[in-house]
């Protein structure tokens, strides 16, 4: 029973990490159709932001709290730059955006290597995240708990923005029917940029959070990007709820298999399970328009 509990907790916290990294993608991939492989490097940029903030802000107690919004802005600005310089010309070719953004990701990685050096950087965790609290007899690390809370907050914030703000209404209208949105006076260009800013900003936030768990190095993003996309695909396109379920589901699955078998085999099994899952429910994948098939 204890072992099972541990697996559930580990699975949930792994799921929260997946959710954090996939949340921004749900927006940019799910709602805009852009397959942004540089999302991983935006996460990396967020992590380096946390590192830089920790150098500037003397108090480790505060630096994380400052780094979170800073990471959001840095990630968002990178996203804006990418959208404005490259992606805006490519909305008609969504599949091609994958390779272009992969190229951008490669460049960003090498930039990070040249600027910060190849060795990993340490971002000190604040003292108030030291240690763990016992939940049902299981010592839950505070950092993990923090990430679960942060993921929850990000989802809530995103939902609130989409539901209750003018921007959110514009985003939903644009996603629903671009031409119609334009005719009722929504600047779809501006909406695109805003969507991309938020989606990429969330990657930055994820990056800051990840410094609590792992290392901050140029390869940070690559280790997460494939999984992040799988979460979005499994969750179904543009469905926030689906993404949450998928992230937690994959996290739990991975934890269970990692416990029963080894980490490597667990990853392979989870990949295969996802392929099999899409056989059963390729929902959101069947697309047919009836008047014209262009």
């Amino acid at each position, binding site marked *: 029973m204890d072992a099972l509990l541990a697996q559930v907790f580990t699975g949930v916290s792994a799921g929260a990490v997946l959710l954090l990294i996939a949340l921004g993608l749900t927006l940019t991939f799910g709602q805009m159709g852009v397959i942004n492989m540089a999302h991983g490097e935006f996460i990396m940029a967020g992590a380096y932001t946390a590192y830089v903030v920790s150098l500037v802000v003397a108090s480790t107690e505060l630096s994380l709290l400052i780094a979170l919004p800073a990471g959001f802005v840095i990630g968002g600005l990178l996203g804006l730059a990418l959208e404005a310089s490259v992606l805006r010309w*490519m909305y*008609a070719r969504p599949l091609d955006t994958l390779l272009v953004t*992969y190229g951008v990701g*490669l*460049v960003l990685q090498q930039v990070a290597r040249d600027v910060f050096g190849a060795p990993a950087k340490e971002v000190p965790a604040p003292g108030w995240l030291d240690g763990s609290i016992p939940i049902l007899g299981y010592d839950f690390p505070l950092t993990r708990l923090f990430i679960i809370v942060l993921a929850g907050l990000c989802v809530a914030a995103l939902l609130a923005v989409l539901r209750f703000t003018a921007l959110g209404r514009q985003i939903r209208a644009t996603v629903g029917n671009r*031409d119609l949105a334009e005719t009722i006076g929504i600047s779809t260009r501006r909406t695109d940029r805003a969507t991309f800013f938020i989606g990429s900003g969330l990657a930055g936030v994820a990056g800051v959070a990840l410094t609590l768990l792992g290392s901050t190095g140029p390869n940070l993003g690559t280790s997460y990007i494939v999984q992040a996309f799988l979460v979005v695909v499994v969750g179904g396109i543009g469905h926030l709820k689906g993404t949450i379920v998928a992230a937690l589901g994959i996290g739990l699955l991975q934890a269970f298999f990692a416990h029963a078998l080894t980490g490597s085999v667990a*990853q392979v099994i989870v990949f295969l399970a996802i*392929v099999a899952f899409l056989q059963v429910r390729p929902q959101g994948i*069947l697309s047919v328009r009836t*008047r014209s098939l262009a």
Partner: protein
Amino acid sequence: MSMKKLSPYVGWLLLAVALLVLAPAVLSDFRLGLLAKYCCYAIAAVGIGLAWGRGGMLVLGQGLYFGIGAYAMAMHLKLADAGPGGVPDFMALYGDATVPGWWEPLRSGAFAVVVILVLPALVAGLLGLAVFKRRIKGAYFAILSQALAAAFAILLVGQVKTTGGANGLNNFQGFFGYALFDPANKRMLYFIAAGILLVSILAMAWLYRSRFGELLVAVRDGEERVRFLGTDPANVKLAAYVIAAVLASIGGALFVPIAGIVSPDDVGVVASIGLLAGVALGGRASLLGPAVGALLVGYAETSLSEAFPGSWSYFQGALFVLVILLLPGGLAQLLNARRGNSVSSRFLRGVPRGKQAQAELPRSASEAAPEEAAAR
């Protein structure tokens, strides 16, 4: 015969002369060996041209098939080196010095060749059947294929005792009875690789001109429309995907004796995307583009990484961005434009945003339909 019909063959002849006559005459053994390696990538690239350029399937996980061919060949070579009943060196080192049952059949060279040709076809066939019949396409297909390549690499790394793990398989002494240290045999390998590359391009030329080739383009540009012409597009895509997989496998199989090694790094996500770079550069939908592009990218990678170590990432990144953004038809597009017979490809040129976004950004019929109904 018109100039336009002739030009691919002229290009092919030029490539043949360059590969079979010029290169062996001017290159050192070492450089020729590198060119042989690029030829292996180019063989896989020819298949990618078919699947991606003509079929519109972004195959992000060809490393899987490259790896199947490469590992099948490598396993055979290790067993052949060990001699009848022998145990490959690394198994004695990391394992319990017994050859696992699934290795045994590969002692036979003929069986290895069959595996190299048939196994990728089977895997691609099964996978394709599952994926295309369920109408999984576009980005979904790309991400799935990428995930499979990633899973394959992780699996290989985890099985140290039977696959050599991250080390991969290397240290091959012979290739079907010929000693690999001998420069004469290495040249022979080069000629085999270049020959197979040229033959596979010819086969592609035939396919592109066949009704299948026309149908494939039709499926790429209007998959659903083809369905209403009485053809299941899944079968057409499946055929192209299987051919691409087999070509990748052949490239992988030749890669092993030429490079002298195969490791999980050669089959994973990064390697798989690397295979696409040449195809994009050369021109994905053109006949010679993928092969020539792959050769160019291979050469550029080697020379740039020699001249400026660590800079290859910048160049590869820039290549992807600039080519795909500005020259989606690759170098072939430049040539065509100069000759003034540019093909107006909706696929490459792009269509108004709303249309394509919906076609590529699938929603279920049940979701899309009420909007349609409401808009009526």
